[in-house]
């Protein structure tokens, strides 16, 4: 339930944005990148963030035109009732697809690395059930949970990730830009889902942010932090596995950390630890998305509370995540979702911004 009296500080938005960005792609992204950009995959990762900076800037400008209402309301205000409703529906479907993709990848990773004998349905129900428990009490406890976990989870996560530096081999980064800049630029496309989150969530949260001017700054900070971590992970995975092995591995991040072994130390096989901390990071991402999906649906249907929509979402999300029959299908769906996300962030949102500016211009007295 979104209490309309609630306010969130820009720092809290930063936490939400970072958590929303860290999703399932953490595990699979390096292989998608390696297929396109080979040795230059980390450059694609770095440049990919520029797209998100642009998309986020556009979203903030659009939301600033309607500082008292959410994305659901201003879509209808800009486009009219039915087209606005359809656009909202498409946005919710995109968000649901992101959650479904996360759930599927999560289940696969848990089965492969932690619970090989446990049926996927058990893992999914466990995950979704806990997410519903977290989401149903509203945004304030959800924020507190994420803030409480933030320093601990990212502290441990970065410590584990950094240990990977000790096992990298510099030969895997050579040659640089061997095939020119084109593959690097093409490699920016699969990074979209990695960074996706703040450009959509700002539309929901902008009316509740206390210092609206600081939203852009803190949003950029969140994208910068995630860019740093993702580039670091891509560099480490590339440095451990090499581009060839990375492109042929389904979950290369975990594979790379499995190979880590530092002689005469206590450090070996870090994949389990990374997986464990990823469960927490992924969960905080999941609850954000589920909350805003349910909030969006509740707003579309003019419901007082989003508690019932949260519960009703469960079977839909479970069904959606079960649709792809195999890893190849997931890969194709991921590609489609990347394009859909780009279309939304760099196509639909700028159009809406232009429309908002036009409408504002017309309203101004001559």
């Amino acid at each position, binding site marked *: 339930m979104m209490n309309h009296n609630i306010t969130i500080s820009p720092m809290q938005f930063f936490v939400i944005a970072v958590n929303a960005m860290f999703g399932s792609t953490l595990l699979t992204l390096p292989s998608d990148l390696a297929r396109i950009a080979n040795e230059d995959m980390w450059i694609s990762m770095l440049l990919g963030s520029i797209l998100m900076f642009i998309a986020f800037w556009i979203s903030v400008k659009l939301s600033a035109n309607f500082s008292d209402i959410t994305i659901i309301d201003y879509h209808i205000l800009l486009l009219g009732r039915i087209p606005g409703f359809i656009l909202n529906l498409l946005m919710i479907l995109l968000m649901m697809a992101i959650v479904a993709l996360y759930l599927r990848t999560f289940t696969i990773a848990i089965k492969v690395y932690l619970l090989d004998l446990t049926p996927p349905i058990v893992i999914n129900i466990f995950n979704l059930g806990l997410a519903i428990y977290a989401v149903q009490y509203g945004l304030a*406890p959800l924020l507190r949970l994420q803030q409480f976990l933030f320093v601990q989870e990212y502290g441990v996560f970065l410590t584990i990730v950094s240990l990977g530096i000790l096992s990298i081999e510099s030969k895997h980064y050579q040659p640089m830009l061997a095939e020119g800049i084109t593959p690097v630029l093409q490699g920016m496309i699969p990074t979209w889902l990695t960074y996706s989150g703040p450009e959509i969530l700002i539309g929901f949260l902008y009316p509740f942010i206390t210092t609206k001017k600081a939203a852009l700054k803190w949003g950029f900070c969140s994208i910068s932090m995630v860019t740093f971590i993702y580039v670091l992970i891509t560099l480490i995975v590339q440095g451990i596995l090499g581009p060839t092995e990375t492109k042929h591995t389904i979950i290369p991040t975990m594979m790379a950390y499995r190979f880590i072994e530092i002689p005469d130390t206590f450090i*070996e096989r870090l994949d389990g630890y990374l997986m464990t901390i990823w469960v927490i990071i992924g969960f905080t991402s999941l609850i954000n998305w589920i909350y805003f999906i349910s909030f969006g649906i509740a707003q579309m249907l003019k419901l007082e509370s989003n508690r019932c929509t949260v519960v009703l979402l469960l079977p839909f999300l479970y069904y959606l995540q079960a649709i792809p029959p195999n890893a190849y299908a997931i890969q194709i769906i991921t590609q489609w979702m990347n394009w859909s996300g780009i279309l939304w962030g760099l196509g639909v949102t700028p159009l809406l911004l232009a429309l908002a500016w036009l409408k504002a211009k017309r309203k101004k007295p001559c």
Partner: protein
Amino acid sequence: MVKKNVHSISNSLDDNTTVKLRNLQSTIAHARQVESDMEAITRSLKEHLADPSIYQIDDHLATNVAHLEEIFAGSNDIHIRELFIISLQRKAVIVFVENMTDQAIINAHIMQKLTITPTNNSSILPPQPTYEYLKNSLLTAASVSAANQMEAATKRVLSGDTALFVDGLSTVLIIATRKVDSRAISPPETESDISGPRDGFTEELRINVSLIRRRIKNPNLVVKRVTVGQRSETDVAIIYFRGIVNMKFVHEAEQRLKALVIDDPTVYGLRGLLEDHPYSPFPTTMTTERPDKFTNALLMGKVGIVVDGTPYCITIPAMFSDFLQAGDDFYQKWLTATLIRLGRYVTAFLGLSFPALYVAITSFHPAFLPTPLALIIGTTREGLPFPSFIEAIIMISLLEIMQEAGIRLPKTVGSTVSIVGGLVIGDAAVRAGLVSPPIVIVTSFTAIASFTIVHYNMSLPLRLLRFMLMILGASFGIFGVTMGLLAISIHLANLESFGEPYLAPLAPRNFGALRDLKATTFISPPKKIDKRPAYLETEDSTRQSNNKE
């Protein structure tokens, strides 16, 4: 003639009817009286409880004495002593409880003063018996107050004061004569410190308030008394520092206390009745035996509640981080104290999850461990009859039993139980091949880790949740433990204490609120702790302003 006859007949008829009517009315009135008497008798037979609020203080002493005898039902320890006030030439009665009053005060400042014969004023008419005259001219006791209701008077008598009823006066004089034998001030048993003060709260409210007043000699320290408990009528003091505290906490505390309908708050534990989330295993009010900690909380902007009859005083609101703060922290150097406090967070986490992690890793993920360690654990577990979960459950249950026995038994015997349990049973179980040596290490470490949690109230939920995590660890491995820890975190995020988030300083509202961590999670150099916690929304947020050098 005929007219006369008719008139006389009608007159005689009227007389008869009038007489009959009178008789009837009298019968009805009598019947009603009988009915009301019967009702009164029935009521008196049913009523076992004396309700002082239904009695009024009367001018006539005899009526008041009759009421008092009804109220106190002839209790032997309550004395109703008649006397004659010579200077007023009137009868009077003093009422007091035998073992709760200072007999010396009664003798010297009441009895002697009232019964003394006036020297030079025999020719002057006796003055009117007024409250002022009695208070200012006759009684020499330090504290004399008036009560106009029987309920208030009886309550004061039962608290140890003496009530003086004077014939012809509808006001009762209450003379402070309270003297209750109580335990001497001794070091707090459950919150021992190395460097802190040694005095602890006692069961006596007045002593506890004096311990607080001794530390804060400021008129802005407000002590507000309320009565809680329908049967016990226990005195409860709400204490706060005016000008610092956010009054919403005071009003909320007062409202919650007044709304309580219980027999005796000390029996049920007032703490649990005041909490926002009674079904949560986590405490959302803080209890302390230490006056220094209590006063520190008041000066932070919290509200204190002192209950007569218990040495545990309550402070509200209470946050999760408060339970991991020891009184000693601020008596040590800030750097070492910070490390110790952070270590307490780590040990609290390990005390909660270490057995579960052991079960999860040995049952599902031995690859988590470095190869040599995994081999050692595997070797020691070879040939054991139980899986690691059963092994852990047995040992942790044993630990719980020993802890409980150690608390309930006298101190001298308690240490014997620990030695027998820890050394003999643990060692014997390993030798017998029932459990492996690593689980003994895990159990011992868990026990020691949980002892570092400062507050017993916080260690209890962690002990409970330890079992939940072990079950999850045995069912879903490390994934289950992680999800269990997440569920606990979600629960903590949902909790509130008097409307304030339970995770308040650990989940700061904004960037500026991060400064709250300086005195909660970390300990800054003393000069840097200059603000009160932002989450308490105090009237005056500055704690000290002399740090600008």
